[in-house]
């Protein structure tokens, strides 16, 4: 239980971190000041907007809400430890009776405080959400239940708590419910021995897809994945909503990496699958109307795949390894879907916007083509594809900076700068050995970066001038 709490607290902290990086709140005041200086709004209008924003932020509860969330999680962890401390001198009837009273009391209190301050309502709601799981732990301990699939107990909890998640007036409980479902799917489907990890002495989960999986496992997995998608789209606030789209490509990659009927142990096929899934994820987010920040995780995943494969210029021999027929078919289908999605989407990739779609489309298709080389069983091909990936990453990073500067999207520029610096640093570590060569390389790279920076700055000024002229 304590592990679950730690995982969920970590996930919520990550969600908070991700939300904190979304645009808006922190940028508002300086933006309004700039607008006032430029004569777009008056001083009184700026003050009114700032006051309205402050009231709105307070209503959304911000830091207070997160304090309340952690308060609730601490209480849940405390109750969990109290249960785990094992009151063996108290009989089963008393334990069950006390638990039922606690569940009824907490549930009723949570119901009555739903619309009150977050400091009261949220901890009670969290306690109600987790109490069925704690109750299952109490029953397991009281009646010495073992030998079953521990994930079924977690599934029972998720089912019992689903209505609390669906009717919650706040995003905290739905986020935790979805994170728990994702953890159950990946643990149950792909972990070889759930038992050894979660509860020693037990076997694979009922949800296991290893060595084929049962009809029940596939059905339950499909239901859980559908529930994750529906809950994410219906219950989460917009900045979080699109993170969970990435669960689906990650799950398909899990099917290929684990010992399922789609198992692939050939690095080349896995490389092709990884870039195809990242591309599909990126295009899908664009089709769903995700903004720049909302699709940042997919952009980072795409860049990370290309960066990871850029190391293969060290590999002279062709990749080899077993790839199941199912895995090959699945990879080819995903690749075809990625290529068709790129060709058919109006916003096909990294930093794409009207006017840039042709360049983005070309980059995405080039990446698919380069990664396809890895499945060719000819020595020297991984080296060639590795060189291609270095070039792709450099082009993608520069393109992101350029388009970010043109579109006024700081996030794209930052992402491009980060990718380019990562590429340069890793290649320096790869290529240069002696102090003299490294020194020369660093000077050349510095000059290149300075030139790029100058070009970006000039582009930005040109755009500002043209917008000023248009305003006049």
């Amino acid at each position, binding site marked *: *239980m*304590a*592990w679950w709490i730690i995982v969920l607290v970590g996930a919520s902290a990550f969600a908070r971190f991700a939300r904190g990086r979304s645009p808006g709140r922190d940028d508002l005041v300086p933006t309004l000041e700039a607008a006032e200086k430029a004569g777009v709004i008056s001083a009184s209008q700026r003050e009114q907007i700032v006051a309205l924003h402050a009231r709105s932020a307070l209503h959304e509860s911000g830091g207070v809400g997160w304090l309340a969330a952690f308060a609730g999680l601490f209480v849940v962890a405390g109750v969990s430890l109290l*249960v*785990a*401390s*094992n*009151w*063996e001198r108290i009989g*089963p*009837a008393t334990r*069950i009776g006390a*638990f*039922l009273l606690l*569940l*009824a009391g907490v*549930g*009723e209190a949570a*119901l009555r405080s*739903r619309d009150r301050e977050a400091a009261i309502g949220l901890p009670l709601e969290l306690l*109600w959400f987790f109490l*069925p799981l704690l*109750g299952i*732990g*109490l*029953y*397991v*301990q*009281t*009646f*010495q*239940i*073992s*030998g*079953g699939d*521990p994930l079924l*107990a977690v599934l029972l909890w998720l089912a*019992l708590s689903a*209505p*609390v998640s669906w*009717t919650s007036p706040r995003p905290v409980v739905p986020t935790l419910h979805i994170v728990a479902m994702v953890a159950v799917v990946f643990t149950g489907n792909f972990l*070889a*021995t759930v*038992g050894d990890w*979660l*509860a*020693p*002495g*037990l*076997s*694979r989960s009922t949800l296991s897809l290893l*060595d084929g999986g049962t009809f029940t496992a596939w059905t339950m997995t499909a239901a859980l994945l559908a529930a994750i998608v529906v809950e994410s789209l219906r219950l989460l606030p917009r900045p979080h909503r699109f993170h969970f789209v990435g669960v689906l490509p990650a799950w398909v990659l899990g099917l290929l990496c684990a010992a399922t009927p789609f198992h692939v142990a050939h690095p080349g096929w896995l490389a092709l699958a990884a870039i195809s899934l990242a591309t599909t994820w990126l295009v899908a987010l664009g089709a769903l109307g995700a903004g720049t920040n909302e699709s940042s995780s997919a952009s980072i995943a795409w860049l990370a795949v290309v960066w990871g494969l850029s190391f293969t210029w060290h590999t002279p021999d062709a990749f080899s390894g077993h790839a199941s027929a199912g895995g090959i078919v699945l990879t080819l289908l995903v690749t075809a879907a990625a290529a068709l999605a790129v060709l058919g989407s109006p916003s096909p990739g990294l930093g794409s916007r009207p006017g840039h779609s042709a360049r983005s489309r070309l980059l995405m298709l080039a990446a698919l083509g380069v990664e396809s080389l890895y499945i060719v069983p000819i020595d020297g091909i991984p080296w060639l594809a590795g060189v291609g990936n270095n070039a792709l990453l450099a082009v993608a990073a520069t393109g992101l900076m350029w388009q970010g500067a043109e579109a006024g999207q700081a996030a794209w520029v930052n992402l491009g700068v980060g990718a380019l610096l990562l590429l340069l640093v890793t290649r320096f570590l790869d290529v240069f050995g002696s102090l003299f060569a490294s020194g020369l390389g660093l000077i050349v790279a510095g000059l290149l970066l300075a030139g790029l920076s100058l070009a970006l700055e000039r582009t930005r000024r040109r755009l500002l001038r043209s917008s000023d002229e248009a305003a006049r």
Partner: protein
Amino acid sequence: MRHVLRGVLALQVAVFAIWGRSLMAAYEPGAAGRKSVATVWLATEPIDPRDLLAGNYVALRYGSLDAEHAKCPKPLERDTAYVAIAPTGRRVVTSEGEVELSDAVECRTDRPPRGDGRVWIVGHRDATPGRERLVYGIERMYVSESSPLRNVRSGDVVAKVVVNDSFAPRIVGLVTTSRNTEPPR
């Protein structure tokens, strides 16, 4: 909305109440039409205690119930197997007095008849490749943090197990032994 949520809360309380009641009645003779509950003692090998979901427990292994020892068909044809256990004649002295240990004597994959005078327990196949074995649901004994049972070693304890007429075993005690007694000749 509150009416719906009150219904959900009532459902949760009802689920736990019914489940708790059924778990309590599972080993009560006479409850829910149950005719018999047998108590057997099994030699066991405790493994390091762990601290997960429901607190501290002693993980237990039963060599006497091993599928091979019970002469179960190999590989197991079904997901469940029924193992008959009978007293071995080996006696040990425990804090509950002198008790006779039981051991597996027969294994079958079809359900045995009720009331044949023998004690059968049902095991479920752990199908993890490379380690096919039977799991009985008595592989863990939850104990308190300060329980001396957390430090027991192999051969120091025996498990007290009750078996109802659905052939389901439940561990009800882990009892330390003071000395072994030779089987009667």
